[in-house]
């Protein structure tokens, strides 16, 4: 074989390899979003196709990304493109009266341009059709490879202008994907955009992966992996994949969550005698401090947003309930849940005022939110077996694990319970979603 033929053979086998990978990857655990319940009177909006920057935009339909973001909240109804008589790309060209006749309240238009330094820029404009006023003009400049994220940021700004709450579209989720039938299953940990796109595999294992948790800065994930047959807690850098085993003590190593300053983990250890308690692990020094000391199961600790205390699950009263304790205080933990016989897996809203939990409601495990000021619990889900609630960083939505036809799916719900959506996997099951922070 001469040099040239060898080269060709290499290229061909590479191409075959790539095709093989390409064919295998998309089938597994791609997420598809479906709105299952929206508001009764969604806001009619027209998101007109943006002018393009060919080829810098990579063929991405920016207006469609924005439209899907806004519609995913169940609060908007977008006009179909084929119904648009005109397709302006600047607010000056918008005929407000004409759009008003077509019964939309808002029109969003915009332009994608490529800049001299290789970056791309999105300029969007929002016009209130009823007043004819241009009410917002967000723009984002970014690397061409990051255009999709930039589109999410534009959607964040438009959502905030119209609804009054910062959008959480330009954020990420992490979740566990499981394939195969018991007892032979494989486990993967993924990070994806909040809309399920752009998923990246963080870890795969033939043994369970569970309890992913985001660092406050969104750069790291902590999780539990049984890859050594026994549990250990790992911390892994999202981008570089750099992974450290931070706790592999005898017995259980579980339920990690980051402190607000990302310097510590709260986690659950049992020692070899099997008594689960909550500990604090300083990541830089490895210094370990015991937080709870009770023969019951104490687990699932989460920090308050100011880092001064934790909430955790304990069955010291005979069944699982949520308790709060102040760090560095000798006071006994205070029980905070009194509704029902099962409350577990607490997670706090970003303002620290609401507690999301798994609660037993008429024989079904559902997601509830407890107002910490007055103790009122609102049920947010309707299934039979739901788990792992996690607040979006804007506090307006929660994501949790639910079931559909016996398979684990991810679900979102607005904190008022009015809007819900489902993220289905194409194959296998997905579970334990955690919503990451706002990105800088």
């Amino acid at each position, binding site marked *: 074989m001469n040099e040239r033929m060898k080269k060709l053979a290499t290229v061909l086998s590479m191409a075959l390899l790539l095709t093989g990978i390409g064919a295998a990857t998309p089938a597994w655990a791609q997420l598809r979003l479906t709105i299952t319940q929206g508001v009764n009177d969604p806001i009619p909006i027209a998101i007109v196709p943006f002018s393009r920057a060919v080829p810098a935009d990579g063929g991405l339909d920016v207006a469609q990304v924005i439209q899907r973001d806004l519609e995913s909240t169940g609060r908007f109804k977008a006009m179909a493109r084929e119904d648009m008589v005109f397709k302006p790309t600047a607010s000056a060209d918008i005929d407000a009266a004409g759009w008003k006749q077509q019964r939309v309240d808002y029109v969003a238009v915009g332009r994608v341009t490529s800049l001299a330094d290789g970056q791309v820029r999105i300029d969007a404009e929002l016009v209130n059709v009823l007043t004819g006023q241009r009410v917002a003009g967000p723009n984002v400049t970014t690397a061409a490879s990051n255009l999709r994220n930039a589109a999410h940021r534009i959607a964040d700004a438009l959502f905030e202008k119209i609804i009054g709450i910062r959008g959480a579209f330009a954020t990420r989720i992490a979740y566990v994907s499981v394939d195969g039938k018991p007892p032979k299953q494989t486990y993967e940990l993924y990070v994806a955009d909040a809309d399920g796109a752009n998923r990246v595999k963080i870890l795969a294992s033939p*043994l369970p992966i569970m309890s992913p948790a985001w660092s406050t800065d969104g750069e790291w994930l902590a999780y539990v992996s*049984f890859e050594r047959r026994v549990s250990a807690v790992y911390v892994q850098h999202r981008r570089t994949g750099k992974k450290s085993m931070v*706790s592999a003590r005898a*017995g*259980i190593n579980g339920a990690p969550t980051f402190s607000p300053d990302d310097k510590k983990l709260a986690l659950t250890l049992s020692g070899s005698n099997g008594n689960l308690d909550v500990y604090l692990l300083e990541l830089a020094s490895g210094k370990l401090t015991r937080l709870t000391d009770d023969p019951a199961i104490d687990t*699932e600790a989460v920090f308050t947003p100011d880092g001064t205390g934790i909430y955790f699950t304990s069955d010291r009263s005979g069944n699982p309930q949520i308790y709060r304790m102040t760090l560095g205080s000798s006071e006994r933990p205070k029980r905070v849940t009194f509704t029902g016989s099962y409350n*577990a897996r607490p997670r706090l809203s970003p303002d620290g005022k609401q507690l999301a939990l798994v609660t037993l409601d008429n024989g079904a495990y559902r997601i509830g939110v407890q107002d910490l000021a007055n103790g009122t619990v609102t049920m947010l889900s309707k299934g039979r077996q739901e788990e792992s609630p996690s607040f979006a960083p804007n506090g307006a939505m929660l994501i949790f694990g639910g079931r559909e036809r016996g398979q684990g799916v991810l679900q979102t719900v607005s904190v008022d319970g009015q809007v819900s959506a489902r993220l289905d996997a194409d194959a296998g099951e997905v579970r334990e979603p955690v919503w990451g922070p706002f990105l800088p």
Partner: protein
Amino acid sequence: MKNFASVSVLLATLALLAGCPSKKADVPPPAPAPTTDTSGVEDPNATMGDTDASMGPSGELLSKRIVYFDLDRADIRADSASVVAAHAAYLAKNPNQKVRLEGHADERGSREYNIGLGERRGQSVRRALALQGVAETQLSTVSYGEERPAAAGSDEMAYAANRRVEIVYLK
């Protein structure tokens, strides 16, 4: 990367050892530093090589390796007592034989809490074996909670099959 990961694990372990001598009574000791590479996905055979289904004694009771539990309970049921007693007698007679007690829960409720329930069941079997003369050094526990079901499905049959402790004989 491989070396870096092993070094960082070693450093972390050393740091842990150095960091908490005064806390010894309060804090579970770190497990021995792992010898496996933790930088990526491991070969399942590398970690599962310490056991296979054919290991361990046979016999009417001894070939039964699974102890089942009632809902939210960790006490050994009367119908499992003879199985546990048979394993206890065998292990007491064979003090070099080690077993791992793998505790499991059904899928209902919170996952990390279920890890706790699985551990309670593993500890319950451990205590029963120890009380019948098995040395503590022969026994270890691990809890998989609801993460490794024996049976698929969301019905009482599957739940009952999944609330269990598996007695795994080690090489």
